[in-house]
């Protein structure tokens, strides 16, 4: 398969993830959408690394995966902390900082 096939697949997954981030009300649902988008980026990185014969893309993917896992852990901890205080994780109702 050509490089474009992999990039198109990644772009499609990215768009789907973006759709999820924009439409989900639930904070965990939004996080899941972000996961999909980061996943699409990883596909792009690995595809470019393979087609350019450049190792740096693979290393970069390794780093993004590790950082994403850390981000999810902290993000979900924040969600649980918010849930303890506000009794909801609906993003629309978390508007304390609204002026």
């Amino acid at each position, binding site marked *: 398969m050509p490089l474009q096939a992999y990039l198109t697949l990644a772009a499609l997954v990215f768009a789907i993830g973006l759709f999820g981030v924009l439409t989900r009300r639930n904070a965990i649902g939004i996080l*899941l959408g972000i*996961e999909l988008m980061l996943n699409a980026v990883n596909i792009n990185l*690995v595809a470019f690394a393979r087609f350019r014969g450049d190792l740096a893309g693979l290393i970069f993917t390794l780093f993004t995966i*590790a950082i994403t896992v850390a981000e999810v852990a902290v993000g979900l901890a924040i969600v649980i902390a918010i849930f303890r205080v506000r009794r909801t994780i609906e993003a629309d109702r978390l508007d304390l900082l609204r002026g």
Partner: protein
Amino acid sequence: MTLETPAFWLVAVLLVGASLGVVLTPNLFHAVLFLAAALVATAAVFLLLDSAFLMGVQLLLYAGGVVTIVVFAIMLTERLVGQRITQASRGLANGAVVAAAVFVGALGVLMETPPAARPPLTGDATEAIGRALVGPFAVPLELLAVLLVAALLGAVYLARTDD
């Protein structure tokens, strides 16, 4: 014509279907299961791109770790509130328009790029990754270790109870 083409289409259909499941299913728990399927399909894409090591990392860290954490978070919040979390969506049309616009924009860019030939494999990628991680990428690797410790402490601090 190799086995790669049918395998690619199979994995692509699985990945896109699972991704749509993540964003469209009303049950949040089912969304996480779809996410697990999407992550496993992504691992298969990595394998198609001759990156067996990254496939392993993806399966262990993403499909194993992330999904477990999210399931825990859902169980905790459901348990605390004592009712099932419904997963309502809003602005479906607006979201679809924006997402489609981003997709078409990305498609326009990557249709202009000239097709690149897939270079032959040179050596063992896993060994090269290992050598690069302790060679030119040693400092970022150590920084990553610091970040993971910080994330660990931060998560424990944020999620702890007050007493």
